[in-house]
């Protein structure tokens, strides 16, 4: 049932997703910035935008390279070009994806899921954050768990991705009533309640964009 095998995680796929995400993030930048100013210090949106710009600009350097090498170059670019928590976390994400064995043979849906799951686990480890702490991990960890169910390929992939879109949205909204225990918002205690976490919002938008694009392929 799985066709167009390479398309699930090719260099082209990564670049076109980065471009799609860039458009969506730019459209929602004011909202994310406002969320961050409520509970953080306002740098998150600039970091995400800077990172996306850097990845999109990498196109000419990586478009003809093997996947593993491209992922490593993306990781280093993100790690050295963004800064803040986002840079460290997304850099870690790409770096660990690049460590997946046999990347340059073929990446089917199952392996693509595995790569993302590995990447999210590495972010969890780096940030020492779990669900319920009002961070982007509130969105990413449940998404990773759902991908783990889907990766066997026995389920309807499009239906599964629609479910992921819903999970990401629900979990993003759920950060509103949480107390923060990680990141700048954690210093606020009760005052962080009532605001959606900006990292959860940007992550949800990223997940939403990728899933919709794969569903419509």
């Amino acid at each position, binding site marked *: 049932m799985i066709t167009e095998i390479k398309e699930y995680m090719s260099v082209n796929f990564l670049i076109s997703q980065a471009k799609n995400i860039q458009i969506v993030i730019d459209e929602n930048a004011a909202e994310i910035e406002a969320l961050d100013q409520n509970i953080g210090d306002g740098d998150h949106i600039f970091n995400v935008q800077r990172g996306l710009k850097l990845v999109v600009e990498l196109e000419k350097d990586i478009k003809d390279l093997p996947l593993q090498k491209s992922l490593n170059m993306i990781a280093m670019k993100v790690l050295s070009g963004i800064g803040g928590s986002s840079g460290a976390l997304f850099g870690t994400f790409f770096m660990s994806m690049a460590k997946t064995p046999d990347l340059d043979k073929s990446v089917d849906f199952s392996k693509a899921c595995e790569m993302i799951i590995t990447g999210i686990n590495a972010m969890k480890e*780096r940030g020492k954050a779990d669900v319920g702490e009002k961070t982007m991990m509130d969105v990413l960890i449940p998404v990773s768990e759902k991908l783990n169910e889907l990766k066997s390929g026995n389920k309807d992939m499009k239906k599964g991705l629609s479910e992921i879109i819903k999970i990401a949205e629900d979990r993003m909204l759920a950060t509103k009533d949480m107390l923060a225990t990680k990141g700048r918002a954690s210093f606020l205690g009760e005052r962080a309640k009532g605001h959606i976490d900006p990292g959860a919002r940007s992550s949800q938008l990223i997940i939403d964009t990728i899933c919709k694009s794969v569903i419509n392929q």
Partner: protein
Amino acid sequence: MKKFINNVDDFLKESLNGFGKAHSDIIKVHFDPNFVSRKSKTKEGKVSLISGGGSGHEPMHGGFVGHGMLDAACPGFVFSAPTPDQMQAAAEHVDSGAGVLFIVKNYSGDIMNFQMGAEMYSGKNDSIITNDDVAVEDSTFTTGRRGVAATVLVEKIVGSLAENGGSLEECKKLGEKVNKNSGTMGVAFTSCTVPAAGKPTFDIGNDEMEFGVGIHGEPGRKREKIQSSKTIVNNMLEAILDDLKPQKNEKTLLFVNGMGGTPLTELYLVYDDACEILKSKGIEITRSLVGNYCTSLEMQGASITLLKCDEEILKNWDAPVHTAAMRWGM
């Protein structure tokens, strides 16, 4: 936004360029990756101290690179943690073989990026984390307390020990002691404006202050109506003393730090109020520091740091220092 800017994207680079030119006798600015090092090489056997963090807190940390203080500083974008390649490059540049001590303020982004930098650096290294801000409770619901102005004191005091041959372990131990012996409380009257954002980080009324503000304009304990300096200073000191619990007649260093937009005239007035209040409580002030050292761009406001001093701390505080922002004894 009214700032001296040519192009927002070049803001940091141009500022670092100017810093390098203005202090070319003491430091050298390196680009891609960005770090500030001493002009001269680290002497053989001396532990190297490297700090860093988001820009916008100048003179911290680049202004503290020089004899008796830091060996290198890694500036991130305004209010954003620097990246691991900066720490790696700085460590490779300054380490003379005696090891590197990273001095990191307690923010998630700084901790993660410094950790990755430390992992990427193959030489001997260790880290200390500063968390002197008493404004936020150290409870299970927080990452812990924020690292703020006492970081300046840690860098000066540990810098002196490193200059005088202290080992990596000894430097770390002293840094942790200074951090533990310090408490800081900050107040803001106005917001700051991050250049990339172009507008104030938070809204605050003309007659309001943020009590317990962080050094990035993060909210603190509460929003209040502005009061007399004596009342504000008294509330700040109460928060610090509650936390530090100094003994009667214990020697202390009193540090009044400006957030960037408050004139020295006012900082000295704050110092006067703080002296009176501490005196009435029987706390002895043996050393002082007043000025803009750990700032938040153009924010109006101040923080007070109290450091409990023993002989080791005093000796290292008094030792000669020659940096862009702090100089005495040489």
